[in-house]
């Protein structure tokens, strides 16, 4: 049963997993630098400038600093939960990338092997992604609970309420996309949008843009980013759920948040912006599809940062109002409209 083809297959999957994991691990280093640069320039400053040319090594300096910091565990904290909470936050956001397709098949040079640029094409990919991304909130809740601190606990509770409200909205947006693509597999969803930007779900008028906005707002809320970063609201909660964390454990939380940002960006690209599809469709001039994917994800990451340094934070009741009283009714109406359009 175990023949060479099978072994080669396993090795290839291993290589893909390792490559994706390495890329994701190194991503936050670049992203913190980019985020601080974007913040600086939006505020007419320069951002980090002293470590390396244009401060490009700042992230490494920060990493070294984090590694050498004391790892403080509060006296009455629940030690086990406190230790595993950052990992609980980090693992699910990495696991999301198992299902995300970065590109279609490519033929390896010098061999005639076909290589798929995704780790797995599950036929229920979108459900897997939603389920796994919902798990990340356990890290936040446990972190808040285990710290034995009021601020952290409140942060954790806020996060759980936020997650419950917006998970519903997010799922609705996914339902919309599934209705448009007639498939739950992320690869098929991308394929259904191929052939130029006018085939993308965002331009499926009139429901496409609405679905996208619903997805985007829910995504912002799931990421705990401004304007919905209530679990770590500095103004009222010091630093929210990670107020007691320091050193590498804190860095893991940050890592988790950045990778989550990448994952939501990738998901937005896959669901609404045609994944690896060339926007020029038939007039394409041969830019490899994977580059298109990366470029689109980068644009989204920039948008997240841009929004962060533009908008103020919402109040907690406003957050809930937007979720339950605005987005869910709109989603329901939109499901109806989409259904009629697909008859």
């Amino acid at each position, binding site marked *: 049963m175990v023949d060479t083809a099978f072994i080669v297959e396993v090795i290839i999957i291993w290589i893909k997993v390792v490559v994706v994991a390495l890329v994701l691990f190194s991503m936050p280093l670049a992203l913190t630098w980019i985020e601080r640069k*974007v913040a*600086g*320039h*939006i*505020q*007419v*400053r*320069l951002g980090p*400038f*002293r470590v390396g040319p244009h401060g490009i090594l700042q992230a490494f300096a920060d990493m070294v600093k984090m590694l050498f910091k004391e790892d403080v565990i509060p006296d009455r904290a629940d030690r086990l939960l406190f230790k595993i909470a950052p990992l609980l936050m980090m693992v699910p956001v990495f696991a999301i990338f198992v299902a995300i397709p970065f590109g279609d098949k490519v033929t390896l040079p010098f061999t005639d092997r076909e290589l798929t640029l995704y780790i797995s094409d599950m036929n229920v990919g979108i459900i897997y992604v939603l389920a796994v991304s919902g798990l990340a909130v356990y890290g936040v809740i446990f972190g808040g609970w285990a710290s034995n601190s009021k601020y952290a606990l409140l942060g954790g509770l806020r996060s759980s309420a936020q997650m419950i409200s917006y998970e519903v909205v997010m799922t609705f947006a996914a339902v919309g996309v599934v209705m448009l693509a007639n498939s739950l597999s992320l690869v098929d969803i991308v394929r259904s949008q191929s052939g130029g930007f006018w085939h993308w779900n965002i331009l499926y008028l009139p429901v496409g843009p609405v679905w996208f906005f619903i997805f985007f707002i829910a995504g912002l809320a799931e990421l705990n980013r401004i304007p919905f970063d209530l679990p770590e609201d500095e103004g009222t909660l010091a630093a929210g759920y990670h107020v007691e964390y320091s050193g590498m454990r804190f860095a893991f939380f940050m890592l988790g948040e950045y990778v989550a940002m990448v994952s939501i960006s990738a998901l937005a690209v896959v669901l609404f912006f045609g994944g690896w599809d060339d926007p020029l469709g038939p007039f394409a001039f041969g830019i490899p599809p994977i580059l298109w994917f990366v470029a689109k994800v980068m644009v989204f990451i920039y948008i997240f940062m*841009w*929004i962060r*340094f*533009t*908008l103020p934070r919402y109040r907690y009741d406003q957050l809930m109002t937007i979720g339950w009283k605005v987005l869910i009714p709109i989603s329901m109406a939109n499901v109806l409209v989409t259904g009629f359009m697909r008859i």
Partner: protein
Amino acid sequence: MNEKKVKIVKRDTPGALDLAKKTVFLDFIKGLSITLRYNLSRSITIRYPDEEKWIPYPRFRGAHTLNRDEEGRELCVACELCVKACPTNCITVVPMEDDTGKGIADRVAKVWEVDLARCFFCGYCEDACPTTAVRLGRDYELACFELDKARKTKEELLKPQSVPEDFEGGIIVQAKLQRTKSGIKVKPNLWKKKEKK
């Protein structure tokens, strides 16, 4: 008794226009376009110790200098008017007789010291001086590790200034950070002007 009139304040109900504005996220778009504009504009940061340095205007009141006349004679006649004028009492002048032509008169300062840790750069000393010997110059990097270093003696003050008196100033120039034995200095290159809006 006159009855209290209760005024009912009616809150403006959001009109159709407001609603329309909300649905297309008009306020967000405005805000985002402002931040985008700033993101693309030039930063106003002066990269101070590493690459750029601000050269103040001549009217700037920085560390003291003692001047000489065209023939190199010390202008200070040790009249001690600056000592009297100083509100913080930080100048010490001890006069002595000298007819070797070191000064412009036969009286020069044996000791002329100012304690920059106490000085608050009001400029009264410079106003009081009858011979315009003492001037507040344009050096503003005065931090030091030991308190004694903040006392400037006559020898130090008589040295020429880092920025010449007739230099226009009010500009940012190229500079270099220098670490020497005596401390950290930011050496300006006065003729390499940097434009900043």
